[in-house]
């Protein structure tokens, strides 16, 4: 039994039994991650009619995505797995979305805030551009790719996880994928007198 959590866009949770999705709960609000994370997980459990003790694995969406919300889901996933003594897996959201488009040359594009985008490129399911940050201008360099909206949720994460497990892909990294350094520079200190 798998619990999938994603807070890359809205806040969602889903429960899978084997390959079958038993439940999916989504809150669309792009700012209410901390408020909704517990309700989403609780809703996913109750809709699936399972108890947390039945879980064998937790999957979290690692982004890339706006950081503040993203961290809520990753924190919840890690804490759930730690509390139950079960493994946690991390899924890169752009990869999970690409999995739904196995044919052709596609560019998964997600909002990165600050007028930038998170992108990743795939050719017939094989990654050809790793997750990276791009401006709208730079997007023109990828005109040979068909653009796919990178919106992700727990259902997409869970489906990817089940597929990736079958391929024996390593998903042990559960860290949030930031792709940007914290936006600060050390201050030199300024004079107070002219």
């Amino acid at each position: 039994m798998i619990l999938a959590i994603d807070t890359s866009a809205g806040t969602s949770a889903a429960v899978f039994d084997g390959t079958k999705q038993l439940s999916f709960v989504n809150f669309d609000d792009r700012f209410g991650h901390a408020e909704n994370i517990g309700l989403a997980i609780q809703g996913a459990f109750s809709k699936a009619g399972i108890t947390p003790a039945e879980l064998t694995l937790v999957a979290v969406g690692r982004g890339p995505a706006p950081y503040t919300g993203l961290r809520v889901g990753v924190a919840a996933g890690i804490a759930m797995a730690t509390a139950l003594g079960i493994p946690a897996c991390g899924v890169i959201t752009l990869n999970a979305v690409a999995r739904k488009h196995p044919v052709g040359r596609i560019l998964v594009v997600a909002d990165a805030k600050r007028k930038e985008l998170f992108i990743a490129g795939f050719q017939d399911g094989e990654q050809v551009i790793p997750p990276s940050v791009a401006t709208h201008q730079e997007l023109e360099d990828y005109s040979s790719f068909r653009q796919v909206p990178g919106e992700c949720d727990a259902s997409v994460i869970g489906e990817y996880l089940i597929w990736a497990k079958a391929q024996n892909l390593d998903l042990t990294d559960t860290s949030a994928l930031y792709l940007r350094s914290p936006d600060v520079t050390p201050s030199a200190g300024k004079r107070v007198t002219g």
Partner: protein
Amino acid sequence: MEIRELQAADLPELMKIETDLFTSEAWKENSFRSEIEGRFTDYFGAFDGELIGYAGLHSVPASFSSDIQTLAVGAAHQSKGLGRTLARKLIAKAFALGSEAVFLEVRADNQSAISLYSSLGFKQIDIRKNYYQDSAIDALVMRLALNQPIVLGIESSCDETGIGIVKGNRLLANALHSSMDEHAKFGGVVPEVAARAHLEALQPTIVQALKDANLSMNQIDAIAVANGPGLAGALMVGIGAAKALALAHNKPIYAVNHLVGHVGADVLENGTVSLPTIALLVSGGHTSLLLVRDLLDDVELLGETIDDAAGEAFDKVARVLGLPYPGGPQIDKLAETGNPKAIRFPRGLSLPKDMEAHRFDFSFSGLKTAVARHVEKAVDNGLELSKADVAASFREAVVDVLLTKAINACEAHGVKKLLLGGGVVANARLRQVAKIRCDEAGIELRIPRFSLCTDNGAMIASIGAQLMMAGRPPSNLGFGAESTLEVTKVQTL
């Protein structure tokens, strides 16, 4: 019928019942008076127009136990369950005070009392021969075990990831991961750096706390988490984790106030917070003066900084003096060799005109600028600059204004107790002057150990435990981070 705390004015009525029931073994009025007025006692009376029964409890803080001193029901009101109601009232009080056991002595020939206590869960543990000397009757010593709640608390409001575990008023674990070093190159806490560090520290810190307490997650009765005030992005990491921990084993969750947590830390040190008290909380993020009449129900903000926090001022002045972050320990060390009276730096919001609107507020921004001006002037004019004198004089100004206002608050509110909390309490001069001035003013000073003064998870767990012990309902699962949460809101439901 109403049950309320007994007062000295109730004594005449009480003595009538006492002498009627216990005749030659009755307590004297003076004994009751000192019991009712005692610091560690709780006496309750049942009233139905008049006093019809009473009961008293004695609990020494940090002993984790209580004693039922007496329990009496007037002759005309017996066998109606009032004895049970009063006993339950005492047990609830003992539980709320953090007691892990309640003891009592009962006459061996008082079958109805023995069966009442037995039905409430008391077990006989000893017998005292001829305890009631007038009648040569034995006393049975009985004990009721109370299971205090085990609470795991999460603190992530700034740069410390704290996971603490308490059982009632008892500290079991206080694991901490600080991201202070990562902020050093920026000269202050960077919210995004702090939030990233929380996420990384989360799992190892939870595991460490459980290991220190020798517990597994399923033995935790409830989760508490600080949901404000603090850095929103940082708080949200703790909240996300806390909600999942609570759901994993279907346990209640309590969203608690970070600042009140600093006051609650004293419970873990002393077994209780002696109330009412003035609390001065000084850190890199807060400088607040509180009047705490009741830890859960009555916390009043008397004043706070209107610009920089005191710890922030230390960091900024350290930078002016070319010292590394965090500034507090650096300035403390340098100041040891300096003259605190060398330069008279301004005391913010301390002029007569400030007393009306800002009597208990603080301002450190002007002080920091004054220090910078002083240093720049000396450097520009090629004058000799004693950094040690600057550090000592600056530190003196901060300590002076903090304690002057704190002690004024004690006096203005007639509260002879001062509790210090927050990271700046590590400052040696602050502790030293606090001791001197409190002694002079006859104020009882409490400073918890340093690991309970700085941000930590145990203080959050402690507030969660206090809420449970007082029988408060848990928070709903939909709460969020509140970066400017008011100190009056101890729990977010």
